[in-house]
């Protein structure tokens, strides 16, 4: 691997120069001394695992966040005020975010031209808006009727509208943040064509992704971030996917999870969880076994049904058919209460909306499942509860000044540890985990992985769904891959690779061929 410091690309003028950029959130260092340049007219990919700092970097470049130290120059002009309006109007930088923000009840044209409408201010010229929008869509070779309401469009088409909107504001640098994460393979192809048109139009692009094939197909340069640091930079033509993956994962972390050497649990033993042909909203006919002490990963695109499968097993959403067994006995959770009573735990992927109780203390968040044990004459024994919480939070090393602190004051990783402490309080025999390290910094991530391993060694069965493939490859004994609501393959950890899983998950092999 070449050291990033020695590489200079100077054939074209750099559109963006990032120098010594750091961003700290309290004690969390999201970015540390990142220096990189993005040449004009190119597509530069920024890669890294979840939590590597990609999003923070993009947010700063789009003006949604300001750096703690360091400078950003766009075409030599230093950015002094980090707010989106300034970056767009003065520096011509636009972000195409993962979560699209469009006015749903307005037309495509109105959304594209919002704020830059032709015609006099209070009364924009409706026909010229439509014409101008149609012209922009034409330039992108996208066929959408500008008069359609945005609400009627699918997410992929809405994304194209956002791109056209950036073009209407004459953006010269477009930041695409994991643009294919919400797209099907066919939709991705369409996006790639639009990206080619953008390049032809002379737009510089920053492309954030952790999908290898598309990055290799589209980019001219690849930068890798890990743990908030810039750890590698290559012209795409001169590097192999393996080298990039090695830089993304980092040997230290990988070595730490040398797979445990207990033999795979015998297939004849009664599995902790057995599903036969279960169906529900978003998944169909799922057969899956998880043995005590086994970690089974569920991989798949976000719409593959893996999230819904976990919710179904837990009783958060209804199951419409099939049979579920827990330790050989029929088990149906009609509500989460049933699952909790059977000592089944569920860590939701949307921590902020579904995990934490945001107005309550760390202690209350940890104790909520065991209040019944600490009651006297119908009243809660606050002091005993406090001791419980201190003990549980201490065991998982939740960093907090006191468990009386509000849970929202903790970092993402510590919130997640507090939620794990909550679920461990019921001594679960089966744990259903959705995106267990989303928004968790690397240090806490390693601790959480170790915790899963020790729980499994103690006989807990773990079913974990994640969009983070390196994570699944690291922690799972077997990986079940889902696509379109079905399990399309189960791969033992020893044979699983990111490419194999991805090929199954996408159903088609189009991406792979591109690479």
């Amino acid at each position, binding site marked *: 691997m070449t050291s990033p410091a020695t590489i200079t690309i100077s054939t074209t003028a750099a559109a963006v120069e990032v120098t010594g950029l750091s961003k700290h*959130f*309290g*004690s*969390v260092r999201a970015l540390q001394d990142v220096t990189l340049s993005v040449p004009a007219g190119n597509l530069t990919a920024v890669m890294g695992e979840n939590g590597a700092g990609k999003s923070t970097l993009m947010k700063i470049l789009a003006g949604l966040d300001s750096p703690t130290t360091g400078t950003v120059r766009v075409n030599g002009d230093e950015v002094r005020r980090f707010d989106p309006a300034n970056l767009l109007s003065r520096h011509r930088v636009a972000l195409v975010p993962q979560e699209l923000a469009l006015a749903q009840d307005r037309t495509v044209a109105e959304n594209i031209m919002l704020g830059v409408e032709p015609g006099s201010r209070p009364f924009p010229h409706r026909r010229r808006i439509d014409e101008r929008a149609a012209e922009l869509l034409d330039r992108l070779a996208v066929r959408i009727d500008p008069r359609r309401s945005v609400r009627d469009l699918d997410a992929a088409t809405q994304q194209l509208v956002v791109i056209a909107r950036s073009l209407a504001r004459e953006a010269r640098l477009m930041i695409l943040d994991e643009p294919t994460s919400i797209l099907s393979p066919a939709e991705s192809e369409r996006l790639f064509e639009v990206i080619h048109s953008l390049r032809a139009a002379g737009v510089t692009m920053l492309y954030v992704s952790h999908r290898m094939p598309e990055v290799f197909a589209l980019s001219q340069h690849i930068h890798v971030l890990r743990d908030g640091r810039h750890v590698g930079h290559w012209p795409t033509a001169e590097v192999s996917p393996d080298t990039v993956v090695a830089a993304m994962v980092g040997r230290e972390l990988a070595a730490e999870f040398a797979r445990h050497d207990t033999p795979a649990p015998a297939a004849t033993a009664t599995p902790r969880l057995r599903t036969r042909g279960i169906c529900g909203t978003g998944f169909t006919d799922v057969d899956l076994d998880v043995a005590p002490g086994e970690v089974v990963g569920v991989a798949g695109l976000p719409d593959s049904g893996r999230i819904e499968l976990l919710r179904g097993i*837990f009783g*958060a959403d209804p199951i419409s058919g099939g049979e579920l067994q827990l330790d050989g006995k029929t088990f149906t959770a009609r*509500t*989460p*209460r049933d*699952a*909790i*009573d059977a000592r089944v735990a*569920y860590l*939701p992927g949307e921590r902020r*909306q*579904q*995990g*934490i*109780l*945001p*107005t*309550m203390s*760390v202690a*209350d968040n940890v104790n*909520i*499942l065991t*209040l*019944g044990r600490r*009651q006297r004459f*119908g*009243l*809660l024994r*606050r002091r005993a509860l406090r001791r419980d919480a*201190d003990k549980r*939070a*201490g065991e998982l*090393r*939740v*960093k*907090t*000044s*006191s*468990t*009386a*602190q*509000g849970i*929202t*004051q903790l*970092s993402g990783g510590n919130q997640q540890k507090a939620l794990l402490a*909550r679920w461990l309080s019921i001594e679960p025999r089966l744990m259903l985990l959705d995106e267990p390290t989303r928004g968790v910094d690397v240090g806490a991530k390693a601790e959480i992985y170790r915790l899963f391993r020790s729980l499994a060694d103690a006989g807990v069965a773990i079913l974990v769904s994640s969009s983070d493939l390196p994570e699944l490859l690291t922690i799972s004994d077997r990986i079940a891959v889902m696509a379109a609501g079905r399990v399309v393959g189960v791969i033992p950890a020893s044979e699983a690779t990111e490419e194999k899983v991805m090929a199954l998950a996408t159903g088609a092999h189009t991406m792979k061929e591109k690479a």
Partner: protein
Amino acid sequence: MVQMTAPAAAPKAPAAESRPSLFQRFLHAREASTFLALVVLFALGTLIAPGFLGANNFLTVGQQIAQIGIMAIGVTFVIINAEIDLSVGSIYGLGAVVAGLLMTSDVAWPLAALGGIAAGAVAGLLNGLMTVGFGIPSFIVTLGTLSVYRGVTLLLSGGSPISLSSSDPNVAEFNLLGQGKLFGLLPMQLVIFALVAVLGAIVLSRSRYGFNTYAVGGSAEAARLCGINTARVKITAFTLSGTLAGLAGVLGLSFLSYVQGVTGTGMELVAISAVIIGGAALFGGSGTMLGTVIGVAFIGVLQNILNLRGISSFWQTVATGGVIILAVAADNWLRRRSGRR
């Protein structure tokens, strides 16, 4: 952010070291700003309102705020649940009219009082069932029942006022609820309010139901995934709110010996204001009984000062509304300054 730079350690140790002083804890309590505002108002009253300082005046204020206070206790449960109950003023009228009709039909006063309270409980239960069952916002449901219950109250009263004759011994005993004084000193209404407030505070801060109320109000989905029956928690809160509004109505009837179909109109806004001034957030999940009691006292003292100054009740209405906006704005500002949510 300050906490995050503290060295990592087991949670116990640093807690012992940096235990905040009582004063610091007071400043960070949600009730602090409301309480300070009440103190300021108190000082103002002492300065500008003749006869403000005095046991008699305070007991009068206590008498005046008791009914609103009892309603506000119930509304607190609803608001912490991230819901709203706009119908409590109508339920107040309903409870009063039902009790009044039972009294004029010579029903023994304890039964008549219970009848009024039960009417409130049923009305609250219906609010809860409709909110949860139809899955529509309680703002809409109770905006509807605000009108429905008022209509029922008017129908029941037949449009004519109900007067209780104090020569009837049954009525005389009933009137002790609203007019009597404990030990010949403390207004009975104030005693009942205090009892309800203490019970409400214990339920909210010490019972599992109270815990679940904060959980559901903070994040209903997270609470559901922790096995809490969120529907039951919310329905219970609406039922509590209705029951207490019914009780307040019964006390109102007992105080005046008189009720008509429109009695209680607009009281819901005062009760909700008291809860908001007391620091509960309309987003749910936060608020305390102590806060609500301070909020109720604040409104009571404000009106008392204006009364003593001989300011017209029209202006009092204006002032109460202005204070709500000021209180929430000040609270917001203070919390942003101290970096706390």
